[in-house]
C-alpha cells in the first residue's frame, strides 16, 4: 500500500461519514456508561414523582397558554424536566470534552482533516441525538403519571428538542473551552446548572415569579433555559412560541461563535493554557 493516498476530505459523503462516526461514538459511550444512562433518567423522574407530588396540593397552575384547562403541577413541570435532561446532557458532554482534553482524546478529534467548526458542530449534534432519545424515554415513562399531551405533540416537540438541545449543548461547548481543569467542573454545577434551572420557568410560571420578585422575573426572562423550556412546552401541546424560538436561536448563534473562538488554535484556551507534554 502506498502512503498519502487519501486527499483532504471534500465531498458531502465524506462529511456525512465523519458526522456518523462522531454520533456513533457518542452513542456507544452513552450505552457503555451505565451510571450516566441511568442517572439521566432517574434525576427527572425523582423530581416528577417526589417533588411534583409534594407540591401538587400547594401549587395550582391556572389556565395559561399553551394549556387550555387547569392543569395539575406534574403536567406543568414535565417540559421543564425534559429541559433539565437536555441541560444536564449539555453539561455532561462539556464535562466529557474537558475530560477528553485532559486525557488527550480531544486531540484525536482536533487533528482530523475536517474544518474545526464542522467537528464541533458534529460533536454538538451527537450530544443532541443522545439527549433527544433520553427525552423520549422520559415522555414514555411520564405517560404513566398522567402526563399525556396530544399524540401530535410528541412529533411537534422533536424540532423544539433539537433546537434547545443544540443551544444547551453549545453552552456546554463554550464552558468546556474555557474551563482549565476537570476539578473546576463542580463550579459549573453550582454557578451554571442550578441558577439556570431555578431562575427559569421550569418549576413555576413566570407570572408567579413576577408577583414574588421583579428582579428574578427579569433574570428569568433573559435566561436561555426559560426559553428552551417554553419552546418545548408549547411544541408539546401543538403550539408554537415564536419569541422563545427566536431567543433560543440567538443564544445558539452566540454560544456557537464563542465555542469556535474557544477552540481556535490561535486564540482559544488550547493556545493559552500552554505547555504540551514535554
Amino acid at each position, binding site marked *: *500500500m*502506498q*502512503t*498519502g*493516498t*487519501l*486527499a*483532504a*476530505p471534500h*465531498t458531502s*459523503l*465524506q*462529511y456525512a*461519514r*465523519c458526522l*456518523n*462516526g*462522531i454520533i*456513533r*461514538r457518542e452513542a*456507544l*459511550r452513552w450505552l*457503555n*456508561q451505565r451510571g450516566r444512562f441511568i442517572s439521566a433518567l432517574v434525576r427527572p423522574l425523582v423530581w416528577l414523582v417526589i417533588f411534583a407530588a409534594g407540591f401538587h396540593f400547594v401549587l395550582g397552575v391556572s389556565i395559561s397558554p399553551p394549556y387550555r384547562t387547569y392543569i395539575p403541577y406534574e403536567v406543568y413541570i414535565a417540559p421543564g424536566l425534559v429541559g433539565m435532561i437536555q441541560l444536564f446532557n449539555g453539561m455532561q458532554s462539556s464535562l466529557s470534552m474537558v475530560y477528553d482534553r485532559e*486525557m*488527550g*482524546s480531544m*486531540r*484525536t*478529534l*482536533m*487533528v*482530523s*482533516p*475536517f*474544518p474545526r467548526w464542522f*467537528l464541533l458542530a458534529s460533536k454538538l449534534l451527537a450530544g443532541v441525538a443522545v439527549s433527544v432519545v433520553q427525552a423520549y424515554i422520559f415522555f414514555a415513562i411520564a405517560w404513566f403519571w398522567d402526563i399525556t399531551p396530544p399524540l401530535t405533540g410528541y412529533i411537534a416537540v422533536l424540532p423544539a428538542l433539537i433546537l434547545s438541545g443544540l443551544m444547551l449543548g453549545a453552552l456546554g461547548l463554550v464552558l468546556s473551552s474555557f474551563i482549565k481543569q476537570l476539578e473546576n467542573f463542580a463550579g459549573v454545577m453550582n454557578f451554571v446548572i442550578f441558577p439556570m434551572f431555578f431562575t427559569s420557568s421550569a418549576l413555576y410560571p413566570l407570572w408567579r415569579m413576577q408577583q414574588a420578585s421583579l428582579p428574578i422575573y427579569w433574570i428569568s426572562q433573559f435566561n436561555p433555559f426559560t426559553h428552551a423550556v417554553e419552546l418545548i412546552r408549547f411544541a408539546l401541546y401543538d403550539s408554537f412560541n415564536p419569541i422563545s424560538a427566536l431567543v433560543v436561536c440567538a443564544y445558539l448563534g452566540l454560544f456557537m461563535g464563542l465555542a469556535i473562538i474557544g477552540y*481556535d*488554535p*490561535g486564540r482559544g484556551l*488550547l*493556545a493559552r493554557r*500552554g*505547555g*504540551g*507534554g*514535554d
Partner: protein
Amino acid sequence: MAQLSYAFGARQVLHKVDLAVRPGDFSVLLGLNGAGKSTLFALITRLYSARTGRISVYGHDIEREPLAALACLGVVFQQSTLDLDLTVEQNLFYHAALHGMSRRAARLRIEEELSRIGLLDRKADRVRALSGGQKRRVELARALLHAPSLLLLDEPTVGLDMESRRFLLDHVRGLCRSRALGVLWATHLIDEAGEESRVIVLHQGRILADGAASDITQAGESIKGAFDRLTQKQAA
C-alpha cells in the same frame, strides 16, 4: 518547517526552528523533558497556531491549507488517546470516520494494520483489557489507517518494556523503508537513535545539531556522548 518560533506568554519555547523530514526518513528528535518537542508537535498538528515561521506538510501550508496538511499526517501522541471503554475496532472505526473513510474501506484497512501488529484477534476486546504495549501498537495502527505520508510520534515508548519498545522501533523503521513513510520520532531516550538514524538535537527550544548519527558524533563518541557535549556547550 522554517524559522518557527513560539512562546507561551513571556516564556519562549521554540527559537527559529528549521527542520525538514523527507519521504523515507527516520528522523529522531532528541531532547530532554521541556526541550519543546510536544510544543513542536502541537504546532505541526495545528493544536496551536504558529505566530512566526512557517510549517508545510508535503507542500501544504498548515495555516493556508490546514485540511490538506492534516490529511497527510498520522500522529501518535505522548498520552494515550484511545477510548478505554470502546473496543479496539470501534476506536479504529472512529478514527477512520474522522478521515472520511467508508466503513468498508475502513474495515479492510483495520484488518490489514491489526494483522501487521499482531493484534487482529484482539479487535473485539475493549482497549481497557490491553497491556500498555498493545495499546501503543493500536495507536500506531490507528495513526496509519488513513495512509499518511508523514508519521509523528511523540515519546511513543515511554512506560513500555524493552520488547514492546523494540517492536515499535523495528516496525516503524520497516515502514520507512517499505512505504517511503517520513517519520519524526520524538524521544528523550537516547538509545532509540540508532547509528543509521538521522538525529536532530533539540535543547531549550533550539536545534543544536541535525544530521546522520555519524555526522554529529566525534571519533569514538557515542550518540549519548555527542548529546551531552552539545547540550552542555549550549548551557555554558
